[in-house]
């Protein structure tokens, strides 16, 4: 193959020279080139090695349908595998390297696979599952090699240094494709006043017009159209943007390659931008992709699509070869052939058809083309590049009817017809319609809010395409007038793309899917083995399953299977397309939702004080909470033990702002609470609060918390941190459906209130100091609240204990949270007040046997937790009926107990429990729910659910952590480890 850059023509900027690199070699290029055109002009024949057989491969296409020229792009942190060289804009300093070849492209060890191709036919991997030896050993043996060989390029594991962003856009009409039809649609819609978004995957508008020779009438038309598009303020033109997905309700996903075409993104610009477009209607003008012919050696470097050879000639001024054989079955290749001949190549056309339209024949002959009707290419030969094509006379079924003639050549340009790019339409609407005359599938011209125009619906001429686009846009303004060549593929097409010997076989490997190395023989094999449905064919051979989604292979594979089965193509069927149309980088979809912004972080208004004062923080759902406050380099265990002891002996202060808080208001609020809680709330007086448990409808414990009555029709409900949203949602659901008669409103006030707990024997003293209020036992007994002022901030003071100590909760208008905390800290020193965190809080409540989230995770009932007595027998409540199901009353159900762990090792939550003499197998008799070192008891303890637990006090059991591979022993005891009478909290 002797490609060369022509001295004139091309839509490239010859005034500037740039350098690109491939495989260590430098290539001269111009702005306007792609990496592919630069490499082609520079004589690079082999651009990659095929997936399975590692056959040398060169360019097949000039656009998004390229299957072979997949390269590694850039180095270091921006390194990118599997980039199509045809879609990479050339820029100065671009570095690319080959992939899937070792040690080099020229000489690849992997090519040995080609010699073993007998073993790599369709379904070879699947066959290792079932033999030839029994068992899975052989499969696992092969698995090792297959995993190594899987994939093409290698990705980097370095962090991506670039920014991406997502943006939402809305419009009246979205037009996908800025070829002639799309541009006509945009102009008409824009003139009408519609808000238009015109999307084009190329850097330039024009579509197929960009492959016309420079100086054609279309140039003038395009320039005018571009100017008008620019002028209309209601048209947004997005170039370098691929519409990759069409979703329900006319939602589209686009990815804009904002700065892929420069060395590094400019400051303030994202590398790529993900658009979510919501439109009222869509016009698809996505064109069509040419079909290859199938013959032996059709994957050799030098065998290309005719439209690609034409694009390289006219758009990039690169003549792909000196001696070109055009292999075709339709009219569309003729224009290209004539242009190639006029550029100096020696051109031969072999057309499967016997009858060739007179005008086309005449044009060809006068251009000096050697025209051979009723002939086809049977085989291509060469070493790592086309050297010759063997032409044979063929029947109208593509079978050779005579001997072959060798024609020396360096390029074979195939044209087997065209396949409209209907992926977006198919994503949305499913199966397209087969057109016999065009031997291809078409979308419906109108369906739902979609209109399809141009080559996408097989328009017969440029004029037709323009008219369709103009009409689809609303028909406003002058109809575009531009005429094309009389070379419509659909006229007199002979629907044969497979060329074989007289016996139906091919003299060598003939490829259907280049990217996945699927041969014609594989299709035949699948048929012989019974995998004849289109879905089976696809998966068994992997044809159409590569990154190109079968853009150049689906039809040929389908046609072959239809022929083997003796069925018409529509009866064999077609597969559906799914987004994305072309690969989309995950970074673009993630945009800013990563790293620190993976999820929204939720902070207490006191947060900064904690971090400024040495707290180690921990994640609690979306919240960040103080975990412990290490002093003098303490470990976590030293810190939490010290903190917990301090609370029991003196007084501690902890930020509990994360608690769920819900305002329950209305004349029926008491009735509502009475229905959701298991215990009574109807007669709770103003100024009192009460601990309550809520069940799910199915009788399991849902949540617990305390609710205070603030006013006659005003209640303040607290929930666990984790269930706040769930409880609110549940309440709303019930009030809006089953209980619409109740005049109740529930509103989240979690953000309205900061909350601080002060706990320990000296807590009353600290609070009396800082509030100057009478907080004696008589004035403020347990489960009462009052109003106080701390640091000029009006607060509500609840007397309630989670830790088991004398304790209070202070509710503060959130924005004053830190101020009140600091006032308490300032009043603290005489009482030795110290902050404590989540870990100590956990130790304290576990010692006390108070349940928390890990005991009410949805698998436990009140009876399991020993709280059955809590439930009122006088009123129904959510869950009251189903909690009485026999299965939930089974005495063997795991019940809440305490465990005193034997030894210095603490138990792991989730460990399973087994009797001492029982084998540690299966699910065991229960599990550990919460675990801690108890500072008060000076031993490791745990809360656990154990079958018949309360009957087994004193028994020693096994505590088995299967994940951590550790077994401990523990004594079963009551879970009220510490101060079971509650003396301290009732003080």
């Amino acid at each position, binding site marked *: 193959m002797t490609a060369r850059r022509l001295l004139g023509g091309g839509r490239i900027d010859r005034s500037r020279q740039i350098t690109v690199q491939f495989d260590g070699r430098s290539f001269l290029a111009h702005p306007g080139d792609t990496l592919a055109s630069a490499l082609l002009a520079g004589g690079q024949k082999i651009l990659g090695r095929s997936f399975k057989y590692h056959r040398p491969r060169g360019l097949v296409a000039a656009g998004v349908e390229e299957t072979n020229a997949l390269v590694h792009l850039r180095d270091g942190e921006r390194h990118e595998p599997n980039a199509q060289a045809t879609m990479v804009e050339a820029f100065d300093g671009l570095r690319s390297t080959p992939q899937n070849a070792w040690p080099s492209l020229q000489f690849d060890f992997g090519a040995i696979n080609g010699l073993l191709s007998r073993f790599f036919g369709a379904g070879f991997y699947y066959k290792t599952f079932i033999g030839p030896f029994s068992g899975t050993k052989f499969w696992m043996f092969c698995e090792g090699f297959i995993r190594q060989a899987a994939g093409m390029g290698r990705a980097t594991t370095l962090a991506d240094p670039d920014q991406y962003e997502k*943006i939402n856009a809305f419009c009246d009409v979205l037009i996908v494709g800025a070829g002639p039809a799309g541009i006509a649609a945009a102009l008409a819609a824009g003139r009408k006043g519609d808000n238009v978004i015109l999307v084009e995957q190329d850097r330039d508008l024009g579509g197929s017009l960009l492959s016309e020779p420079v100086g054609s009438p279309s140039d003038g038309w395009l320039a005018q159209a571009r100017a008008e598009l620019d002028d209309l303020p209601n048209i947004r033109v997005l170039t370098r943007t691929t519409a990759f997905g069409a979703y329900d309700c006319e939602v589209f996903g686009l990815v804009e390659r904002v700065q892929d075409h420069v060395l590094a993104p400019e400051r*303030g610009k994202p590398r790529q931008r993900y658009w979510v477009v919501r439109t009222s209607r869509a016009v698809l003008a996505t064109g069509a992709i040419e079909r290859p012919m199938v013959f032996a050696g059709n994957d050799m470097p030098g065998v290309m699509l005719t439209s690609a050879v034409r694009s390289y000639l006219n758009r990039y001024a690169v003549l792909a070869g000196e001696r070109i054989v055009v292999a075709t079955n339709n009219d569309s290749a003729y224009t290209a052939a004539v242009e190639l001949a006029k550029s100096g190549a020696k051109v031969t056309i072999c057309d499967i058809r016997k009858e060739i339209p007179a005008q086309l024949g005449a044009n060809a002959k006068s251009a000096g083309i050697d025209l051979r009707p009723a002939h086809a290419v049977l085989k291509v030969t060469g070493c790592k590049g086309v050297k010759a094509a063997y032409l044979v006379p063929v029947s109208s079924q593509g079978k050779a009817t005579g001997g072959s003639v060798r024609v020396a050549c360096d390029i074979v340009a195939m044209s087997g017809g065209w396949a409209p790019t209907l992926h977006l339409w198919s994503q949305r609407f499913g199966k397209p319609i087969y057109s016999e005359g065009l031997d291809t599938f078409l979308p419906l011209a109108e369906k739902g809010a979609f209109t399809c125009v141009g080559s996408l619906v097989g328009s017969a001429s440029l004029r037709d395409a323009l008219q369709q686009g103009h009409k689809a846009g609303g028909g406003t303004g002058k109809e575009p007038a531009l005429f094309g060549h009389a070379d419509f593929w659909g006229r007199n097409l002979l629907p044969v793309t497979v060329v074989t010997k007289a016996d139906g076989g091919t003299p060598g490997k003939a490829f259907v899917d280049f990217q996945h190395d699927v041969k014609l023989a594989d299709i035949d094999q699948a048929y012989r083995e019974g995998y004849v449905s289109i879905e089976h064919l696809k998966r068994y051979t992997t044809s159409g399953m590569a990154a190109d989604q079968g853009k150049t292979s689906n039809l040929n594979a389908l046609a072959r299977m239809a022929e083997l089965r003796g069925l018409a193509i529509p009866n064999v069927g077609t597969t559906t397309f799914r987004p994305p149309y072309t690969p989309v980088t995950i970074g673009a979809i993630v945009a800013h939702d990563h790293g620190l*912004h993976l999820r929204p*972080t939720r902070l207490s208004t006191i947060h900064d004080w904690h971090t400024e004062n040495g707290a180690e923080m921990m994640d609690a759902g979306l*919240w960040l909470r103080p975990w412990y406050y290490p002093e003098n380099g303490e470990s976590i265990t030293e810190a939490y033990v010290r903190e917990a002891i301090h609370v029991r002996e003196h007084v501690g202060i902890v930020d509990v702002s994360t608690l769920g808080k819900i305002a329950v208001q209305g004349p029926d609020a008491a009735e509502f609470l009475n229905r959701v809680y298991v215990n009574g709330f109807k007669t709770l007086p103003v100024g009192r609060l009460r601990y309550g448990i809520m069940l799910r409808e199915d009788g399991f414990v849902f949540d617990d918390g305390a609710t205070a009555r603030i006013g006659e*029709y005003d209640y303040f409900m607290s929930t666990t941190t984790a269930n706040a949203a769930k409880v609110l949602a549940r309440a709303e659901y019930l009030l809006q459906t089953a209980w619409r008669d109740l005049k109740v409103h529930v509103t989240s006030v979690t953000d309205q*209130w900061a909350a601080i707990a002060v706990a320990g024997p000296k807590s009353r003293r600290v609070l009396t100091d800082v509030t100057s209020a009478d907080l004696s036992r008589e004035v403020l007994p347990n489960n009462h609240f009052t109003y106080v002022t701390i640091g000029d901030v009006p607060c509500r003071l609840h007397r309630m204990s989670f830790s088991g100590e004398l304790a209070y909760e202070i509710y503060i208008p959130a*924005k*004053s949270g830190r101020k009140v905390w600091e006032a308490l800290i300032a009043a603290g020193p005489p009482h030795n007040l110290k902050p404590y965190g989540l870990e100590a809080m956990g130790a304290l409540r576990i010692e006390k046997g108070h349940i928390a989230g890990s005991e009410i995770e949805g698998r436990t009932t009140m009876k399991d937790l020993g709280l059955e007595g809590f439930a009122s027998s006088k009123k129904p409540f959510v869950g009251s009926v189903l909690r009485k199901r026999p299965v939930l009353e089974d005495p063997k159900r795991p019940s809440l107990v305490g465990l005193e762990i034997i030894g210095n090792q603490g138990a792991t939550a989730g460990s399973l429990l087994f009797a001492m003499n029982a084998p540690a197998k299966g699910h065991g008799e229960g599990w550990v729910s919460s675990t801690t070192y108890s500072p008060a008891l000076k031993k490791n303890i745990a809360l656990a659910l154990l079958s018949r637990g309360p009957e087994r006090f004193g028994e020693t059991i096994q505590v088995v952590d299967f994940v951590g591979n550790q077994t401990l022993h523990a004594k079963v005891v009551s879970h009220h480890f510490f101060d079971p009478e509650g003396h301290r909290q009732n003080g």
Partner: protein
Amino acid sequence: MAKKHPSPIRGTTTDGLAVTITETELGHLTQLAGWEGFDRTADQALRTQGLTLPSDFRSSVRRGPATLWRTAPDRVLIRSETPLRRVETAVNLAILDLSDSRVCLTLEGPGASGLLSRVAALDFGDAAFLVGQFAQTAIHQVSVLIDRQGIDQFTLLIPTTFAMALTSFLADHLTAELVSKPMNR
């Protein structure tokens, strides 16, 4: 955890348009909620404050420094400089002080609607989201209320506990202004 940004935050979107994000004083925020007859009872109660109940859920009602948003068929949210005058009828109308539950951000500048388009799935076009309209939507999975006060000015009410995360998320979309040379046009 996301970074904290000093207020005000100034920057440009990737379109090169400037935005300033400022935390502003919220003042008082009160929710009124009711049941049957809400239209009547709420309208009556609001008139004592000089406000009226709108019939739709997009129009902001303003009177002096006070703004009212009808956030649900039976709820309104009122932002005011001073606490609302006492409204009796607790049987028909529940009153809830939410002044500490929200932080108020103002987004100002030609890039304001572009910034919002990057974080919320709403049409912020001038014709789709009119000045004087509001919307309840989500930014970064957190519920927010967005009130449009000008072509280039939006007020955001965001939950207090998510204020740092959302402000940081918004700021992340902006490139800080450099000490700039005059731009050539």
